[in-house]
């Protein structure tokens, strides 16, 4: 299983904060997982997840789209950070 988290504006746009995706070869990279989520959920998700400023993390470290994923990984998608 992969544990997927969404935060802030992205969570509100998609209407979900957390979901699980069964691990397979199709989702063995972050790009593969993103394509899978878009194929499952449609155009709204494509717009939200492919937005230029979206940030991604794997196991709580910032990650690029070509990052490899393993079963049990925690993956997060979120907008630019605005703390402080």
């Amino acid at each position, binding site marked *: 299983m992969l544990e997927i*988290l969404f*935060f*802030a*504006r992205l969570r509100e746009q998609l209407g979900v904060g957390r979901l699980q995706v069964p691990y397979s070869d199709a989702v063995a990279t972050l790009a593969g997982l993103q394509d899978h989520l878009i194929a499952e959920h449609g155009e709204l998700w494509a717009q939200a997840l492919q937005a230029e*400023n979206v940030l991604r*993390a794997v196991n*709580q*470290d*910032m990650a690029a789209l070509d990052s490899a994923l393993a079963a049990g990984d925690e993956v*997060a998608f*979120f*907008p*630019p*950070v*605005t*703390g*402080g």
Partner: protein
Amino acid sequence: MNDLKVSIQTQDFDVAQLQRELGSLDTTGAIASFTGLVRSNNADRQVAVMELEHYPGMTERSIEKIMAEASQRWQLQAIRVVHRVGALRPGEQIVYVGVASGHRGDAFAACEFVMDYLKTRAPFWKKELTSAGEHWVEERTSDQHSAQRWGASPK
């Protein structure tokens, strides 16, 4: 070193108390600190409430990395970071960064460095509730520029 602590919390914090904890060594010559407050106006909007969201776990880790990076770059004795989350009103304290060092130069520089990186790297998101409705605060390019002037960034 390294006495590095981060706390993400809903409750308010006492700057004087944090300051006393930082200055507990008799070799400490300087404490530089920054306290951030919620402003009532942002880009001409009246802010009634500021809601702070974070990514539990990653937020703490990213601030720990920023503090570790600061303690590599400067001679420091201790760093404290406190960041509040949840619903805050104008005038309330939102963030504290305190740095103890033997001398002021290192303390000043490290304090500003930690704050600049926190604003651009740590996963927090602000939502403003205003008279004109609610909206997520957009990232500021001036914050990116402030962080970039320190050179290579902590991952």
